């Protein structure tokens, strides 16, 4: 709840119009993802994206938006006197207790797919894994800068690494390290991974899933529904390479499955039509499933500038959360 409030306060007043203005003014200045990936340091890449994102945000009419928001409550007997904000007491003559950041800020768990299928990429050596890592790192940087707790979980055929959400000095570095880990040799077992994840997430928060979702849709829908039912706010970033989306192959060749190693002779001229139809059906099924599960779905082709992907995400999240707050009256 607090996360939702925080998120809503954070983005309050940010209208679609502003975002659209920000989007219009900043699209040409966004860094091409393939060029961005030439920055070898993930943290640096994330900062570059974030800079771009901030610029876009600062061009919005809502200037001076502070991210350093702290929440007070009246002192009641039994509260730890160490938490009394003495400056405020001096000014107001009243005693208020400052809430801890981890009590008032967002908890976000970035769940990144590290299966072998994420190693595919067609544009300038950039893979989906690189895109996912950069997107997650940017989001992590962004959230931690404003006091949110961020954690990272990587998975393939099961959970690989899990770093709980924190916001402490040095935590960001750890997150970057995890995100920088190479993709594992393994297939995608979304259901298993989500099940394991749900057991680890004890507190409600935001779960951002970065994956190509190359798995049966039925199992995914079930696990996402379960996470939603647990009170997690799930956002699915569906990453796909443009070559996968459009199947830009011309020469007949033996295609090899990155995860299973299975090989098939494919004549693109013959197989393209069927492939695209099946892919569309899968993507539609995923979108529908997410919708049914109450999960936010973000379509992320890897040739989309990361800033734009985040803006899209933010704009949808803002609209949804504002509406939710209005319905629920905000806060808890």
């Amino acid at each position, binding site marked *: 709840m607090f996360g939702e409030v925080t998120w809503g306060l954070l983005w309050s007043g940010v209208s679609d119009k502003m975002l659209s203005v920000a989007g219009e003014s900043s699209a040409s200045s966004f860094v091409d993802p393939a060029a961005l990936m030439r920055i070898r340091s993930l943290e640096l890449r994330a900062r570059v994206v974030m800079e771009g994102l901030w610029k876009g945000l600062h061009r919005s009419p809502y200037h001076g938006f502070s991210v350093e928001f702290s929440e007070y409550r009246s002192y009641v007997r039994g509260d730890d006197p160490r938490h009394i904000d003495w400056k405020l007491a001096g000014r107001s003559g009243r005693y208020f207790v400052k809430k801890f950041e981890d009590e008032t800020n967002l908890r976000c768990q970035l769940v990144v797919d590290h299966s072998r299928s994420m190693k595919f990429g067609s544009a300038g050596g950039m893979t989906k894994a690189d895109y996912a890592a950069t997107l997650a790192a940017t989001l992590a940087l962004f959230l931690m800068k404003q006091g949110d707790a961020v954690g990272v979980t990587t998975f393939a055929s099961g959970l690989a690494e899990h770093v709980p959400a924190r916001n402490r000095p040095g935590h960001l570095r750890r997150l970057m390290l995890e995100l920088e880990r190479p993709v594992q040799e393994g297939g995608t077992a979304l259901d298993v991974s989500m099940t394991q994840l749900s057991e680890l997430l004890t507190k409600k928060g935001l779960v951002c899933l970065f994956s190509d979702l190359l798995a049966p849709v039925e199992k995914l829908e079930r696990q996402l529904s379960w996470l939603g039912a647990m009170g997690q706010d799930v956002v699915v970033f569906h990453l796909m390479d443009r070559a996968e989306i459009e199947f830009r192959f011309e020469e007949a060749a033996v295609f090899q499955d990155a995860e299973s190693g299975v090989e098939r*002779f*494919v004549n693109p001229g013959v197989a393209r039509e069927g492939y695209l139809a099946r892919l569309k059906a*899968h993507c539609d099924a995923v979108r529908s499933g997410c919708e049914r599960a109450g999960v936010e779905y973000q379509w992320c082709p890897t040739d989309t500038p990361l800033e734009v992907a985040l803006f899209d995400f933010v704009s949808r999240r803002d609209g949804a959360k504002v509406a939710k707050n209005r319905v629920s009256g905000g806060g808890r």
Partner: protein
Amino acid sequence: MFPLYLAGAAAVIVPILLHLRRQPPKDRVAFSSLMFLEETERQPTRRRRLENWLLLLARCLILILLALMFARPFSRDREASGVEEGESVVVLLDRSASMRRGELWKRGVEAVREVVEAAGVSDRVAVGLFDGKVEWVMAGDEGLPEARRAAVAGLAKVMPGWGETDLGRAMVSGLEVLAQWNDGGRKKRRLVVVSDFQEGAKLAELQKVAWPEGVVAERRVIALEEEGNLTLELVSGRTEEEEEGVANAEVVRRVRVSSSRETQQTGFELAWEGSNQGVVVQGFLPPGGRRVLKMPPREKGDEKPGVLKVTGDGYDFDNRVYVAPEQPREVRVRVAADEEGALERAASPGYYLKRALLGTAAVRPVLETVDAANWDGVTGGGVVVSAGDGVRLGEAGIAAWRKVLGEGGLGVYVVDGVSAEAELKALTGELGWRVKEAGEQGDGAYAMLGEVDSKDGLLAPFADARLKDFTKVRFWKHRVVEVEGEGVKVLARFDSGDAAMIAVRQGAGTLLVLTSGWHPADSQLALSTKFVPLWFGWLAAAGFSYEEEGVLQVGQALPWEFKGEGKVTGPSGQVGVLKAGEVFVAKEPGVYRAEANGGEKEARWFAVQLPAGEGRVSVMAEERLTELGVNLESGDEVAGGAGEVTAEVRERMDGVETEAKQRLWLWTLVAILVLVIVESMLGASRGREGSVA
């Protein structure tokens, strides 16, 4: 040209095998997931072959044409190649005397056979034998191989002759034949000469012609390993001393011994063949040297032909000199006399005349006395003499004398008194003669010849100042003879001015009038050393002696015109019958005997020698021909030697020339380039067919 490169065409099997081999797709694409991809059915190999057969064909053709290009192909179809159809070949085989050495002739025939057999059916070939002239044994028709083989086979039965080597004339004849065949200059023309190319060959005729364009001369030298040779030749001409000698001197013959520069031996010997004399001359000659010797005398048998031979080398075809028996010309000298023994009566003019005219190698006077009654039977030319011993000619004698003089004879008339005036007038016709006695000189007095016209032919022997001193000849008596008229010439005068010797032209002959006799009663002339040369000089001037005829050689006609039928007997015993006006050409060296009228009435020996120069057997340098403009084919071809150009080599040379003209390799290269472009286009098209449909 290089058929070995065609083996490279075997590389065409490589693209065929590669094309047929079922190759797995080379491209492998790593893809994220195959969950949306269905496997595409592969096309059958058979269908793939059919689709790519054009590409395979193009690649195969490229490899084949590459091999073909390196092999440098050419077409022997002369029309397509632009080479003139056929070749004109004239082959000349030397059949001169020098080809009698060793195996030369046999090898020459073999060389001719090779050339003829190498000729194609469309070629024109002519074969000729040459020495001093050319004899064609095969005309230049485009004959069948059988005809050519028969002609060449006939050569094997022929032997070389004894003629000289007139190489120039032979080559000019060959050029004439080629010129006759030359229809627009389209044919290749070649003149092949098979010979020993001796240095003694004549080349003068080549200086008279310009070598025609397009004709190539080919030299096939036939040489012996052992080239050393000795030659014996008869030398013509006299030395100055001999010329100065008396007319009745012995005819001196000389021989020349020559040695080629390749001769290893230096010694030689001369000997008369068939004689018991043995070696008559021994000598030494350095290689390339020569010596002139007087012909050694024969011990006996001068009346028979003789053969002088030199020994000291391995080839004796030129080691002989033939000598005809001595055969002086017989001159009938009819002396007017009134008795038969007049020539034996001592102190008579006839006595001294007979002993003076003893005969020489050139002239053999035959004296006979004729009395006044027998002049009617005197016919023909010859010499008539009235010696001035009081014998009168009479009318018959006068008539006979006039006849003899008219036919070119010589009359010697000694004026013995005033009565001779009438006879002189009768002999000479209209000339006015005046004869009177000069009177005796008195005791001890005498006349001498003070003026002698030695420039006249009748006194030619005395042309030398040393010989025309007649002051030692005393004339006791003489008559004063005066004559005027045409054709009269005083040859000598006494110191008194009176004529001593008068020559009168009578018809074709000469009447020589002496105003003093030669017998001791009149003068010392018969007893002097001048008498004999005086008489032989008169005979020579009147044409009653033979000039040195020079050396007769094979191929020359005998210098004797048959006025009637006659025959000539050759050295091998063969007899040739000739008609009037015909001449006989000697074909081999030796001594010939020519007889007119079928008998001994008029016969003569002729010695015919081997042509000069045939003994110079060293091989002439090529430059001697090229200097005369002969377009020699490069390289000297020694028939039977290491450098022999066989038919195979010639065919290869023709192929090189044809290939250079056709340049088919260039068109092959163009075709390869076109095919490469086509192959590239087909290959790209094949790639696109595999991409987006």
